């Protein structure tokens, strides 16, 4: 007897930039290989991650609903763990398909549907460090000044 599951998958943006359909098929093919019937699957979001995952700071989220029976979920977890293109996954049981999910998923099958290109992972460029030789003349100048200040202090002390 099959049960409905909700699966959220994090996909590597490099795979998504190459081809969205191919990136999506990474997950859907693995699901079908283990005997699942994919009810819906769609791009949920592309966003910056709250913390780096496998060295990546941005990822694309794929939301799927699928039906599978028996112990199928446990066997497919191993495939997702081994695949480097899937950064993280979450599979939870679902009572019913949420409203509007089927329509959003079918909108991706329409002609002319395109996924915006994910921005590059590195959002800033590190600034070059300052040149060290610039500090040396200032250090050399400080020494005679320090000696002069010490000499003034001694003379002031003698006056007191």
């Amino acid at each position, binding site marked *: 007897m099959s049960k409905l599951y909700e699966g*959220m998958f*994090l996909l590597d943006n490099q795979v998504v930039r190459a081809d969205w359909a191919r990136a999506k098929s990474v997950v859907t093919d693995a699901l079908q290989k283990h005997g699942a019937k994919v009810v819906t699957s769609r791009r949920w979001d592309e966003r910056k991650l*709250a*913390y780096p995952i496998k060295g990546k700071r941005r990822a694309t989220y794929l939301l799927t609903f699928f039906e599978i029976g028996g112990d199928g979920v446990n066997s497919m977890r191993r495939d997702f763990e081994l695949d480097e293109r899937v950064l993280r996954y*979450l599979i939870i049981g679902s009572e019913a398909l949420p409203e509007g999910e089927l329509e959003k998923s079918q909108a991706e099958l329409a002609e002319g549907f395109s996924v915006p290109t994910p921005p590059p992972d590195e959002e800033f460029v590190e600034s070059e460090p300052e040149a060290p030789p610039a500090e040396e003349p200032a250090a050399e100048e400080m020494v005679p000044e320090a000696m002069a200040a010490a000499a003034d202090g001694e003379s002031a002390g003698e006056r007191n």
Partner: protein
Amino acid sequence: MAMLDTRSRVPLKPIASKNCDDPKIDYKEIDYLAKFLTPQAQIHSRKRSGFCAQCQRELKEAIKRARHLGLLPFVG
């Protein structure tokens, strides 16, 4: 030493409604869940969130799922 005047301190208003009928406790509702985190990304107590025991457990599970998927931070 002067005693602290605790009578004038106004208690913080609970974040959620009292009836716990908010359907938005889902790991995908990040903007809503983020309201229940402290500035250090810790989950608020029931006193502050205003949830019943069951809803607080659902909130806890949703936030932890969102953290696992990188939608919410663990720290900061």
